[in-house]
């Protein structure tokens, strides 16, 4: 790969993920807050010990997530063979400053284990020791897959509907002042799985915008998972690249093994029966019977494929080659 091409790739990663408003804000906030290590430790605490409640805490943690995402992407791009050594001095210096901070280290090593920043840390320390150059196969095909992965990932992190739905997956909730009820994961999935409730709450009509957003967020997230599974399957000949790509979203894939994941899968099973419900007689009657039948058949197939894709993504073995690399 020519130096010019390499520099352009690095620049594009930097522009798209580091110059991103939230990552940049995360870094600037980190510089200020890290001068007081107790305050940093409080803001980056494990939420299981004390819930995260204030706007300041949520915002800082979200911004740090974006900054850590950037380092994860740099790590992933090394393992995909998209970029290689040496990284720019400024990138190395900043990454060390953030990732080697003891509080931040605790955050991504123990509280919310993220292997990609750990790989980057080790790489920055001793690139030859990891032996990445010998393990990866740079190719135009892998570059294209990697760029597709980044586009897909970006579509997820910038979607407000998915963001809201993931907040529910993370045991969060909203209060809807029109409905005057709390909206949590169970409630939203109950609505999604019930034709009567979908009609009763006029989902899609913007009568209850937050509810609409969460229902669409659910739909978009399931579609996102299918897209992600398709990309991982294209990496079957590059196990380290695939492991890195899996680890990029491992937090959510592991979450699918917990209660929210079971609720999601249960909802998908309910949806198989929802496709038998005759919604279309309630709308203008242009639809032909064969079109209704086609919708039912294709919807059932989509749900079944989505369930297969989720099963595939839950397989933690996909991420092991990266864990093994770290422990070598």
């Amino acid at each position: 790969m020519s130096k010019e091409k390499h520099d352009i790739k690095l620049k594009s990663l930097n522009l798209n993920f580091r110059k991103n408003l939230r990552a940049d804000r995360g870094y600037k906030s980190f510089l200020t807050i890290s001068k007081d290590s107790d305050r940093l430790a409080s803001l980056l605490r494990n939420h299981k010990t004390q819930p995260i409640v204030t706007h300041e805490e949520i915002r800082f943690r979200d911004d740090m997530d974006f900054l850590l995402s950037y380092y994860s992407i740099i790590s992933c791009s090394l393992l995909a063979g998209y970029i290689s050594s040496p990284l720019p001095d400024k990138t190395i210096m900043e990454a060390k400053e953030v990732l080697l901070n003891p509080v931040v280290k605790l955050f991504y090593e123990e509280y919310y284990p993220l292997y990609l920043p750990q790989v980057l840390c080790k790489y920055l320390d001793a690139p030859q020791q990891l032996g990445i150059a010998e393990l990866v196969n740079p190719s135009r095909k892998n570059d294209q897959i990697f760029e597709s992965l980044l586009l897909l990932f970006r579509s997820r992190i910038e979607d407000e509907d998915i963001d809201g739905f993931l907040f529910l997956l993370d045991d969060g909730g909203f209060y809807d002042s029109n409905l005057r009820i709390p909206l949590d994961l169970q409630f939203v999935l109950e609505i999604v799985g019930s034709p009567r409730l979908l009609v009763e709450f006029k989902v899609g009509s913007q009568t209850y915008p937050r509810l609409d957003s969460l229902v669409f967020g659910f739909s978009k997230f399931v579609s996102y998972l299918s897209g992600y599974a398709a990309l991982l399957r294209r990496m079957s000949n590059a196990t380290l690249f695939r492991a890195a790509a899996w680890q990029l979203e491992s937090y959510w894939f592991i979450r699918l093994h917990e209660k929210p994941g079971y609720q999601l899968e249960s909802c998908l099973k309910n949806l198989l029966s929802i496709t038998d419900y005759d919604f279309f007689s309630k709308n203008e009657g242009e639809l032909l019977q064969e079109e209704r039948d086609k919708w039912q058949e294709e919807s059932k197939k989509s749900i079944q494929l989505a369930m297969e894709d989720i099963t595939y993504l839950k397989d933690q073995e996909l991420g092991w080659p990266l864990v093994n690399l770290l422990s070598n």
Partner: protein
Amino acid sequence: MFHAPAAYLYEGKNSTAYYCLKDPEALVIFVHGFKGTSLETWDDFSSLLIEHPSFANCDLFFYGYESIKGQAFDQGQELLRFINNNHKPKSPFRNRNPKMYSKIVIAAHSLGAIVARFAILGSIEQNYDWRKMCKLVLFAPAHNGARIQSLIMDSLDGFYKVIGGITMFFLPIIDDLKPDSAALHRLRTETEDYRGGPEHMLLNASVLHVFGDRIVHNAPFCFDVFVKESPIRNHSHKSICKPMLINNYLLPIEIIRDQL
């Protein structure tokens, strides 16, 4: 390598730019349709164009918007703002950028054709200078209205089909797509007002449509011109705007190239 890797733009939704590495002469803006996305609607278009010598001096923007929200007119206003903010070359990958593009081609599919036309009409109203460089290319445009049921059933892919088939009938933008809607009436009358005048060439789009399109109604619109290959057979409403090397379907690329 004619173009830099994708650069994410922060206007619209998942809007993406492929900046050429040489001095750009033209800009092509792609505008998707109902429930489309900035890049997926166009499938291999981006990967084919960035390696096509005819586009080596072209910046390529794939504009995205949340098509299930708002009305067609609203989306048009946002597209107008996007074009106005980006009508001068400003790639971060070039050491210097020329002052302007000599041509701006706006390629739109289905609902995107309505959105794009509202944007162009807005540019006339605002008297933006850059509009004089614009040219509209429309694929299976929805400006004569759509069969709503088919639009929703056929345009939704994969899992969207399930929930979308149930919830999307209530969306305001669906009303805009009905053949007798106020939005389409406004689009037609405002466009007609410019027939034969100085803005005529700006508003007479080149159109490619599908023979027997199951989703949009095919008919002349104002003073648009059908490309000579129109109507095209063996394609669907969705595939018409997706060039493919495998079956040698490169017509969409040729139509845009001919406008440069």
